């Protein structure tokens, strides 16, 4: 089971390593969004600083839509999804494998973006452990919901428009909780970031559970 999870993760990461789609398109996209927010808000340095957390996680959400679309495309081309199922791999293993692959890619993008907000937004890091823990947990939440909804819309004709409509509201709590945790990690607001991190974890458990229960049905029928 765990071996199968890693098998799927490894497959997705290897496809990414060879195609470099995330690296060549998603990273520049993320940095451009950050820079554009910088242009839009730079008139007031205090506003830019106060908005850093929200801008950061909003950008992650946009990036996640691209990453999930990519992850879904891998499976629907050439009937790869059917082949995975015929290979006797448990749908749960496919679910966690793909979630892990998206999470690892997103986490890499986020690390670059942390550099971006320090460089462009003058952000100062008050607590590195909180910052990194938030990135890890929030990324898991995003990937867990994204993988589930990606499989859900895989065979919908209007996939590209339906995915954001479904995914972004589902991820709204992640945006809120991760932004508050970042506010603490960046020392912007008076909040307890670790508490928000705990709520993020709760969200991650809920969504991973729903994914575990529903993914097989979606792979086979939808």
């Amino acid at each position, binding site marked *: 089971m765990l071996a199968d999870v890693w098998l799927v993760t490894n497959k997705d990461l290897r496809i990414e390593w060879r195609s470099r789609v995330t690296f060549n398109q998603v990273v520049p996209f993320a940095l451009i969004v950050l820079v554009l927010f910088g242009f839009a808000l730079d008139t007031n340095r205090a506003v830019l600083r106060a908005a850093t957390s929200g801008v950061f996680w909003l950008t992650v959400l946009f990036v996640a839509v691209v990453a999930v679309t990519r992850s879904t495309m891998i499976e629907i081309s050439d009937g790869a999804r059917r082949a995975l199922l015929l*290979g*006797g*791999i*448990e*749908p*749960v293993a496919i679910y966690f494998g793909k979630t892990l692959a998206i999470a690892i890619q997103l986490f890499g993008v986020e690390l670059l973006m942390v550099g971006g907000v320090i460089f462009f937004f003058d952000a100062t890091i008050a607590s590195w452990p909180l910052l990194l823990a938030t990135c890890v947990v929030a990324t898991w939440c995003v990937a867990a919901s994204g993988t589930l909804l990606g499989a859900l819309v895989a065979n919908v004709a209007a996939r590209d428009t339906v995915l954001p409509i479904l995914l972004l509201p589902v991820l709204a709590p992640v945006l809120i909780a991760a932004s*508050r945790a970042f506010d603490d990690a960046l020392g*912007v*607001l*008076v*909040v*307890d970031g670790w*508490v*928000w991190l*705990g*709520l993020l*974890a*709760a969200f991650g*458990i*809920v969504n*991973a*559970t729903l994914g*575990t*229960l529903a993914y*097989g049905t979606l792979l086979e029928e939808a």
Partner: protein
Amino acid sequence: MTTDLTPLPPRPRYARRTAGLAVTVALVATAAVAVLVVNLVGGTLYFYNADEAVEERASIGDRRFTLQGTPIGCSIVEGLSGNESVVAFSVMFAGTAVDVVHFGDPAELFQADVSVVLDGGWVEQSPQVAGFAPLANDGWHFASDRMRVKHDNDYINREGYDERLARSAEAGGSTEVVCEA
């Protein structure tokens, strides 16, 4: 990467997950989430109550936060701070008072003994509003620029002012302080 292309023995087709397993997973997850939520929600502050705001004054510093408290009737004064029209009053929660200067018009339902939620920050200075007798008078005041009224779920129509005071005191919005006119 492996170059051995010998076909592997077929894997057994995965067993159809039983409803029992699904229920177990759902229950365990629900329990974990419930524990997390119950233990954590109290810490996700939307606002500080007056007593907490005073306690955390050092760690809050000059950052913005949201304050909740019950306005004490006799302290409410409309006046000027510099050239700006302000409302000055003291709020209380759980026996601790905070002096507030609100810049701008007060909320429509702003009145004594009905809690308010205010956005703003600490200022290390006694409020300079003519006619305002601050209750806390501790050398600080809360400068507010956004006011919401937090009304309760009582919908009553009687001259129940005294009763409301008693309930407000019970809920922590202490009104025991008697203003000296």
